[in-house]
């Protein structure tokens, strides 16, 4: 029987990226996927007639441009179109829009507060400084601060150097930024509730924390540190939906000679004498390889696919306690036409933007209180978009696809499974909130896919359906991610690596964990590195 050089488990964007870089180094790689489609949570699904849903992740910014370029994703069909702006509908009938044009954006902010409009520049500069700091470490392995190895010490010194380079005051600002809540961070710049509410969403998306929870300012970076064509913080649509990202990476993988197997769910990772030697599939087949790389989240990898006895007990305990929480759901809607939002002027550019329906910090935080009690938010934070306005390929002409990311939505209702009725009620909560601002919206709905964290878990395989494969709190970042002492993509089992979003630098369609893991694996195998370097100073 054939022995591969490497098996990558899970054909999400990270698994595929990892597989592609390994294959490009000349390794014989097979990537196995449990579903009959690839992409994991970066997919375009045809669930209703001629509509294509980006039914999990829905916009793209974090995908590292170095990887995009190295894998020549444009040749494999990927095209990202930037979109701009956002709108916050207000209970009093007004709205706060954010616009691509700097001056229009300024005037709109000044309509609420001249102070805030002027404060925005300092806010941008300060936040951009943090982005630049972190962006430099996205395509590198986090050093272990408790290690004395030259490589770790060198990387620690590099981070220390970058930190020192900021100068005293900005070092303190950095310490504060990494530890404070997004609400308090915003309070230091802005005075207007709706403006703060508009900005605070980025501090909690995908996170089981409220805007007042310390540590959420950092989460902002996971929404600001991306880019489209060097415009840091910009977001874009992948033409054809997020599946285009996965398909392009898969294209690069196959072009490098890789083999892709769908409907090949892994039951167990086979460990012999403390070393991973292959996988046993759900259908009973076995595939053998010298290296096994798991793109699954850390819990699924070690709790479901590996016998407890093969792991050190402390490690097992740590994995059990790794925090990976379902906090967000998704409602994907096929529309018979474009809904109108009477608050907006006709033809407003804001139709193309992210739409939100919460206008105060208190409502943002109260949405979190519901979640803590094991319920979905009665008044949820929704990040709604109509991608078909930018990318008409996703629905028939004149028809539209609407993507609603919803927070907060628990993995279990008060500790038990969701019922069908509850799931419907959750979907209705979302639809009602939007309908409050769009009277014709409900009549245009042709089909709605409602996805709770439980559904996402069942289909994609991510524990609790957490979009980041693990909370982005300080105890689970950098050298703590996923497990202190195992933050460099290696596991306690020889030949078994991790390359999913549970690892540094975490989630979002970034592909950095997959690439970083490939670099470490290639180094262990003494193969030439195929993973690109950071573009630097940006």
């Amino acid at each position, binding site marked *: 029987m054939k022995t591969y050089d490497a098996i990558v488990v899970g054909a999400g964007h990270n698994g595929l990226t990892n597989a592609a870089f390994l294959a490009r180094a000349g390794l014989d790689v097979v990537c196995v996927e449990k579903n009959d489609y690839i992409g994991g949570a970066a997919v375009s699904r045809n669930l209703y007639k001629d509509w294509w849903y980006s039914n999990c992740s829905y916009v793209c910014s974090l995908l590292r441009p170095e990887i995009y370029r190295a894998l020549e994703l444009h040749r494999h069909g990927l095209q990202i179109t930037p979109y701009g702006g956002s709108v916050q509908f207000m209970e009093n009938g007004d709205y706060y829009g954010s616009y691509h044009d700097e001056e229009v954006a300024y005037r709109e902010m000044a309509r609420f507060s001249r102070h805030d409009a002027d404060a925005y520049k300092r806010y941008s500069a300060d936040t951009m400084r943090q982005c630049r700091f972190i962006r430099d470490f996205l395509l590198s392995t986090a050093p272990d601060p*408790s290690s004395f190895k030259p490589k770790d010490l060198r990387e620690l010194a590099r981070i220390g150097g970058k930190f020192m380079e900021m100068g*005293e005051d900005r070092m303190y*600002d950095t310490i*504060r930024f990494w*530890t404070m809540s997004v609400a308090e961070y915003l309070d230091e710049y802005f005075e207007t509730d709706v403006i703060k509410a508009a900005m605070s969403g980025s501090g909690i998306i995908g996170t089981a924390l409220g805007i007042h929870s*310390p540590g959420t300012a950092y989460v902002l970076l996971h929404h600001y540190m991306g880019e489209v064509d060097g415009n840091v913080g910009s977001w874009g649509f992948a033409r054809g939906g997020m599946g285009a990202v996965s398909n392009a990476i898969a294209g690069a993988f196959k072009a490098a000679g890789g083999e892709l197997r769908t409907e090949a769910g892994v039951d167990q990772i086979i460990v012999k004498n403390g070393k991973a030697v292959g996988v046993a599939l759900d259908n009973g087949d076995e595939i053998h390889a010298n290296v096994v790389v798991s793109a699954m989240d850390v819990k699924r990898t070690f709790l479901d696919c590996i016998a407890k006895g093969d792991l050190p007990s402390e490690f097992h305990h740590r994995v059990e306690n790794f925090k990976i929480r379902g906090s967000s759901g998704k409602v994907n809607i096929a529309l018979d036409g474009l809904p109108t939002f009477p608050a907006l002027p006709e033809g407003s550019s804001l139709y193309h933007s992210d739409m939100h329906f919460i206008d105060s910090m208190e409502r943002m*935080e109260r949405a979190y209180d519901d979640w*803590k009690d094991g319920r979905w938010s009665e008044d949820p934070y929704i990040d709604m978009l109509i991608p078909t306005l930018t990318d008409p390929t996703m629905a028939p002409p004149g028809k539209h696809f609407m993507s609603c990311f919803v927070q907060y939505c628990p993995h279990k209702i008060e500790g038990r499974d969701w019922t069908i009725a509850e799931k419907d009620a959750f979907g209705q909560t979302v639809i009602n909130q939007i309908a409050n601002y769009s009277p014709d919206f409900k009549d245009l709905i042709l089909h709605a896919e409602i996805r709770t964290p439980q559904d996402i878990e069942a289909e994609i395989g991510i524990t609790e359906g957490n979009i980041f494969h693990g909370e982005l709190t300080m*105890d689970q970042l950098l*050298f703590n991610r996923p497990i202190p002492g195992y933050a460099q993509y290696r596991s306690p089992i020889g030949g078994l690596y991790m390359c999913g979003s549970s690892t540094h630098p975490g989630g979002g369609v970034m592909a950095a964990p997959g690439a970083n893991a490939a670099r470490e694996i290639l180094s262990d195998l003494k193969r030439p590195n195929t993973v690109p370097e950071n573009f630097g100073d940006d």
Partner: protein
Amino acid sequence: MTDQYDAIIVGAGHNGLVCSALLARAGKRVLVLEANEQVGGAAITREFADGYSVSACAHLLYQLQPAVRKELKLTPRMASSELTTIALGEGGKHLRLDNKQVEGVNREDAAHYREFRKRMSRFSDLLRKFFNKPPPRLGSKDLKDLVTLGQLGLDLRMLGKDEMREFLRLIGMNIYDELTERFEHPLLRGAISLDAVLGTHLGPRSPNTIMTYLYRQAGDHGQCGIPAGGMGSVSNELAHVARSEGATIRTGIPVKRIIVENGRVAGVETEFGDRFDSFTVISNADPKRTIMDLIGVKHVETGFTRRIHHLRAKGNAAKLHLALDGLPNFAGLSKKDFVERLVIAPSANYVERAFNPAKYGESSPKPVIEMTFPSCRDETMAPTGKHVMSAVVQYAPYDLNGGWTDEAKAAFEKVVIETIAEYAPDIGGRVTASELLTPVDIEREFHISGGHWHHAELTLDQFMFVRPVSSAAQYSMPLEGLYLCGAGTHPGGGVSGAAGRNAARTILSREKAA
């Protein structure tokens, strides 16, 4: 003799007193000016009803730093010490816990608790090391800062590889997750949660609450006691030590402003118009009050002012004092149990739910409560046969919607008594007099901005290097001759004396260098 001093300390809180004693011992001519008639700041004993006395603000002694104790040879006389915490449960099923073990839980919980406490003790020992020296300045090329920073890193590494990793993981975490991982018993989770959130604007699910829990332990390993004669006696002892070292302490003299001349501090002016000169003024007041009111922002810069302005310091802890005509009946408690520390925090979720309304300017409909009955061991506190209860109650947010009117206070007091009555139904009938101090009252009586225990919220973004604010964490303010020595500086509040001691050491070592 002119009124020229080597140092003037504004405020005779415990930190101001510790600072004054250490400076006086070094031969400095020190003047301490206190606005209130008593020394002690928030650590005082006073009568709140005819014949009934109470520790008016802080009511338990648990953080006094061993170094301060030793250097000043403090031997506070204790009415009771090594208190057990009794976590009140339904139907008299209480837990008893101290800093090593817990009774009333299953074997696993008991074992886990011992293990948990051991680890927490190790970590709080580490924090204690950090707390007893000024934090180093980052980016400084000064050898002293580099050595302190190196020492800090070394202390961390000395924990050993695994423990260091664990420390770095835990320090930013919330206590809730840790408790859920380890313990089953809701009362145990609740009682520990309470320790993590007392005095803060945090709930147990807020990241950062392991740090605040450790903070509490960094004095006497979490052991607490009640001084004989209340907290005021500790302050009086401190004042006595300071005076015997040669410091002058004058009470009833509010400082109106700190005088700035030629771009540096030159002395203070009192509300009575008197002037005292000194090129070193050390404020025991909180940072906001010091900069905004006593100095005046024109003497500092805009960036610094903005930071001070944004310093978060809104208290949530109220004090309730009850004069009782006898001890109430708590199901499952005997008379001797009243000397202990009783807490109402039946579960971590209960504590979190009590916190929720505080985020929106509302007080808890079901508050968390820490009670002591100091009169049980100390007959000076109440008339014979009568008793006092001193309770810390959360959450009573400083900026309550509509403000702390008399009606709001009465309503909250009722809520608190009803909450206690769930465990001691007769308590309402035993109350002969009461006093509720909300954070607004605490602000007024003790001159603490926001009525916050710690003078500034104790979160990692206002901790160590960045406490109270960036570039001012080493007790010296960006105005020549001005220092802070209160709870708003490193390490923070609680009757620990650490800030006062660190400030004195900083001032003395600077002088030596100059």
